[in-house]
């Protein structure tokens, strides 16, 4: 008899306990989703220095023949094309080469499972040469960091001479002149 009374009490308690557990479980899952913010490990792979015509030589890019700066840029996906730029608070640049490669880990700004676009650009700090990758998409992994590296993109085949400021100014003047000519032609 006593056992029966206890059983009723236990059953009710169990129901309440199970409800509490279910709520806890849902909360735990929500928290799990929230804390697993993803970072991106980006890596350039080995880069070779530019020859006189911009063609890569056999010499690795290094701190000795630099310095160099690599900048990583990322965008959200907009219907299969790059959308809004992701503003990173850290991990967007690297200025030190090891074995001719640059790499960094971004800050946590990426949504798990979402598609993003990225591009890496290296410039020598003297402002003579620059080289960029294609803009390529990647998906953020549900667990751990996501790799955005030489497996995701292709590099421009040659280095490009960075336009000098005077050249840029002349180019701007030229564009302005064309615009004014079109306007006053009417």
């Amino acid at each position, binding site marked *: 008899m006593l056992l029966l009374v206890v059983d009723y009490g236990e059953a009710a308690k169990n129901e309440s306990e199970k409800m509490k*557990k279910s709520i*806890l479980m849902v909360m735990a899952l929500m928290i799990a989703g929230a804390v*697993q913010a993803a970072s991106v490990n980006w890596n350039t792979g080995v880069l070779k220095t530019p020859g006189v015509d911009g063609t890569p030589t056999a010499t690795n890019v290094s701190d000795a023949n630099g310095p160099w700066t690599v900048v990583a840029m990322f965008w959200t996906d907009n219907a299969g094309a790059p959308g809004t730029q992701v503003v990173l608070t850290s991990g967007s640049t690297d200025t030190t080469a*090891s*074995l001719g490669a640059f790499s960094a880990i971004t800050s946590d700004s990426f949504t798990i499972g979402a598609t993003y676009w990225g591009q890496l650009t290296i410039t020598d700090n003297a402002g003579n040469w620059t080289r960029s990758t294609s803009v390529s998409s990647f998906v953020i*992994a549900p*667990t751990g*960091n996501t790799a955005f590296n030489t497996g995701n993109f292709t590099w421009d085949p040659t280095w490009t001479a960075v336009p000098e400021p005077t050249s840029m100014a002349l180019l701007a003047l030229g564009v302005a002149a064309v615009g004014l000519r079109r306007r006053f032609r009417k």
Partner: protein
Amino acid sequence: MKKLLTACAACVLAGMVSAQVESVNIVGYQTVTASGQYFSSGPTFVTVGSATADWNLGDIAVSGMDPFTDFIQFLSPNTAGTVLSATYIDAVADAAYGAGDGALIGWWDYNDVGGTSLDAEVFAAGTGFLCNLTSTGVQFTYSGEVLQGDTALDLAGQKYPMIANLTPVDLTLADVTATGMDPFLDFIQFLSPTTAGTVVSATYIDAVADAAYGAGDGALIGWWDYNDVGGTSLDTTAFPAGASVLGNFTSTGVQVIFPNPVQ
């Protein structure tokens, strides 16, 4: 005299049998305590007599796990997403949620606790899992047979394998080798037990990569920080028994080789 000879022969035979048993297999168990909510782990033994070096989920006994708030996750080697969530009912939970007769003790699908048993789930040696534990002090007891000799895990085609230190011995990364890893494409990740975020990314330079990126004299062979390849060595990084790491491989022919735990 006859009795003495018989006893002597029996002793010799017993010695031979004993020696044979020792050389065939070594069995044992090991208890590992979860160090946080997102503890990464995996068995240090395979099922006794397993011809294909597998382990069953039912080989693992757990204490302290709440079947309604705690679970372990097996990740997809293609996407790193969870493909199976399992929870454990121990004797305490069996008494709390069942009849207390032990019938519920074992592994269950987290989405159907008490309904779908997972005790018979089979995994290849070296397969790890990611915990999601609200309870603290959860202990996993791994038992079975020690895999002897060097063990090469063939991870061909797996982008995100969860790789466990399958030996019952605390290792450093220097004890583990790899083949087929491109140091600028492939890495393993040690996950934080408190956030599940990556705390260390390590890549391996093998003899092929040493020749491609270095002088080919073997000086670069070993584990490196993925963000400073050739600059920061991670050979001394601890890889404890029963711990696991998450691979991130672009190359399709990666093998990770664990040393013989029986020296």
